């Protein structure tokens, strides 16, 4: 009689495909997963605790380090929450600058996702292609705020730096370039039979499950739920622009792939329109009190980050520091569905599914 037993395999925290220090303990029978338990907290820095001792402006750099692939949107959710509580008016130019950097960030973030996802699938080249184009965005950000990853760009009431001379033109030039390149990417990868065989029908869930697990962003939309906070609960000046929200049908990795690729295009569309209306001059900071003290009370503000709904819940007691600051991190919430998706899949699909959820461990652990 042959004795078989399940193998307990530690995937991570040091593993090439967990995108950082994320760990999954999987039980495998041969190569088939019978149970998966995610373990996290390796990158927990206690942002929420630290924030309680810092002024609101001082917290902004900490938000950079949560979702470090999309720092601009994390910046924005915090300042937007404070502005909502203080009911501040944001100057037009600052609004546009914010929107432009957020959409550029979305493009950059999805490019990183695209590259790393294909690297997970085993194709090496797209990663470098994606980083070449992301580099252009990073360079623009660097010129704008002097940092490549942790921008610390937004401030309560506006933005820290105005666009330097010629910056807007660079963005204008980037849009058609990126559109063309995106087509090229579709030609290169999106029709590849091996790639399609790897992602079609893998990691499927229906709309009911997606809603139940509180998924957001492309993960929710892939299951056919048309929900994009930029459209459904508009913030900033998104209601002025015309763009589509791509929605999937099957809720599999393929749909998530297509949606993210399409979102790049839609972001470019928004940028195009924003470039046309971009105010030539104006203030970049609104009238903000010297010390930022949101009035007593609380507010939960959420925006659409590249990974989904990122929220900031401020409980203020009228002081310069928040009484309690909670971030709803989309990666953390989206990840919850992972154990459910992994059961019955092979080790290979573990990588495919985890990659398609698109997590940033800095955000999962906060």
């Amino acid at each position, binding site marked *: 009689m042959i004795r078989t037993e399940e193998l307990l395999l530690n995937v991570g925290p040091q593993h090439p495909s967990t995108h950082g220090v994320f760990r999954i303990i999987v039980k495998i029978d041969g190569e088939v997963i019978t149970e998966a338990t995610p373990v996290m907290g390796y990158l927990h820095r206690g942002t929420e605790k630290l924030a309680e001792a810092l002024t609101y402006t001082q917290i902004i750099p900490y938000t950079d380090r949560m979702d470090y692939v999309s720092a601009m949107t994390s910046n924005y959710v915090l300042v937007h929450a404070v502005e909502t509580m203080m009911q501040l008016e944001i100057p037009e130019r600052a609004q546009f600058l914010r929107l432009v950097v957020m959409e550029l960030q979305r493009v950059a973030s999805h490019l990183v996702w695209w590259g790393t996802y294909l690297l997970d699938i085993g194709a090496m080249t797209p990663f*470098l292609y994606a980083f070449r184009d992301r580099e252009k965005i990073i360079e623009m950000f660097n010129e704008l705020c002097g940092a490549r990853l942790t921008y610390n760009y937004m401030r309560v009431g506006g933005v820290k730096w105005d666009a330097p001379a010629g910056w807007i033109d660079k963005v204008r030039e980037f849009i058609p370039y990126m559109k063309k390149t995106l087509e090229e990417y579709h030609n290169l990868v999106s029709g*590849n039979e091996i790639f399609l065989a790897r992602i079609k029908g893998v990691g499927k869930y229906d709309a009911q499950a997606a809603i139940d697990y509180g998924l957001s962003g492309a993960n929710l939309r892939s299951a056919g739920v048309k929900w994009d906070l930029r459209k459904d609960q508009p913030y900033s000046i998104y209601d002025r622009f015309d763009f589509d929200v791509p929605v999937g049908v099957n809720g599999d990795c393929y749909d998530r792939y297509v949606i993210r690729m399409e979102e790049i295009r839609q972001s470019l569309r928004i940028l195009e329109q924003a470039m046309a209306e971009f105010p030539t001059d104006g203030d970049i900071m609104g009238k903000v009190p010297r010390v930022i003290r949101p009035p007593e009370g609380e507010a939960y503000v959420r925006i659409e980050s590249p990974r989904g709904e990122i929220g900031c819940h401020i409980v203020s007691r009228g002081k310069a520091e928040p009484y309690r600051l909670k971030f709803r991190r989309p990666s953390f919430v989206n990840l919850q569905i992972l154990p459910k998706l992994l059961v019955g899949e092979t080790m290979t699909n573990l*990588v495919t599914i985890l990659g398609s959820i698109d997590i940033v461990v800095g955000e999962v652990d906060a």
Partner: protein
Amino acid sequence: MEDFLQKTLGWGNFTIFAISGIVMLLISLGFVTYFIYFERKVIGWMQFRIGPNRTGPFGLLQSVADVAKLLMKEDTIPKKADKELFILAPIITYVPSFMVLAVIPYSETLYFTDLNVGLLYYIALSGISTIGIVLGGWASNNKYALLGGMRSAAQMISYEIPLVISVTGVILISGSLNLRMIAMGQEGWFWNWNIVPQILGFVIFTIAAVAELNRTPFDLPEAESELIAGYHVEYSGFRFAFFMLSEYTYVYAIAALTTVLFLGGWYAPAPFLEFIPGLVWFFVKFAFVVFFLFWIRATLPRMRVDQLMSLGWKWLLPLSLVNLFVTALYMEIFK
């Protein structure tokens, strides 16, 4: 060369054999060194990178530096590993990869053996390397390595069969298992090359060969993004170098074998081009095959285990049987 090989073995011959064997080893090592260099360069260019360019002129010494680093690196053996097997595994993997080079003819006059079952010898020996890989995976006492080793065993067995059956078509046409004879049967214009009548066999052979080489898109045993490094995850230093070396030696062997079997060996594509020496033609074709391997590595994603299996058993095997059958029928009726 032919007369020389027929002589009875004496001390004199033996020394010459030994020296030529060592020369061949050095050539293959040199080839591997620069194969890696060109792989990195070519893939670098395909990916808008420069590739190695710091060590030596144009980075030519990069691979040399890498090998030197591996040699000087601490050699670690995991505490719980099966020590003897752990040490044995890279040797078992490497030795056959070098031994198969013996049967490859490079030109009409340059060859090392004239074995009448050359092709069989090649395929039989290359199968042994799989044992080394499985052994390495098992002896490491590491779960990832074990998974990698098991994948490797499954993959090798599945692809060895279509590989062999796809070349039987060539054997039927040539009427010989001797690689030199097979090459000589393709003399003349390029439509005499086996690739023309055996195009189906060639396609199957190429796919199966890439799978045998564990290269993208069939690099499942080492699948970096899933199994970290697969079967050699616990190896370091020189033992790791041996695994890499055998992998690249097989690339050399497969590229040479493809050239001999399907691309007309050392013959020029047209008779009037024969003023260029056969060795050059051989090298050109060989380089093309090698480049093709780089190319697909930079292009394709990895397959999944179950897809790999179904491709091997449901497609390649039946197709290779069809190819064999059609070839046999053709040979029976028309020749």
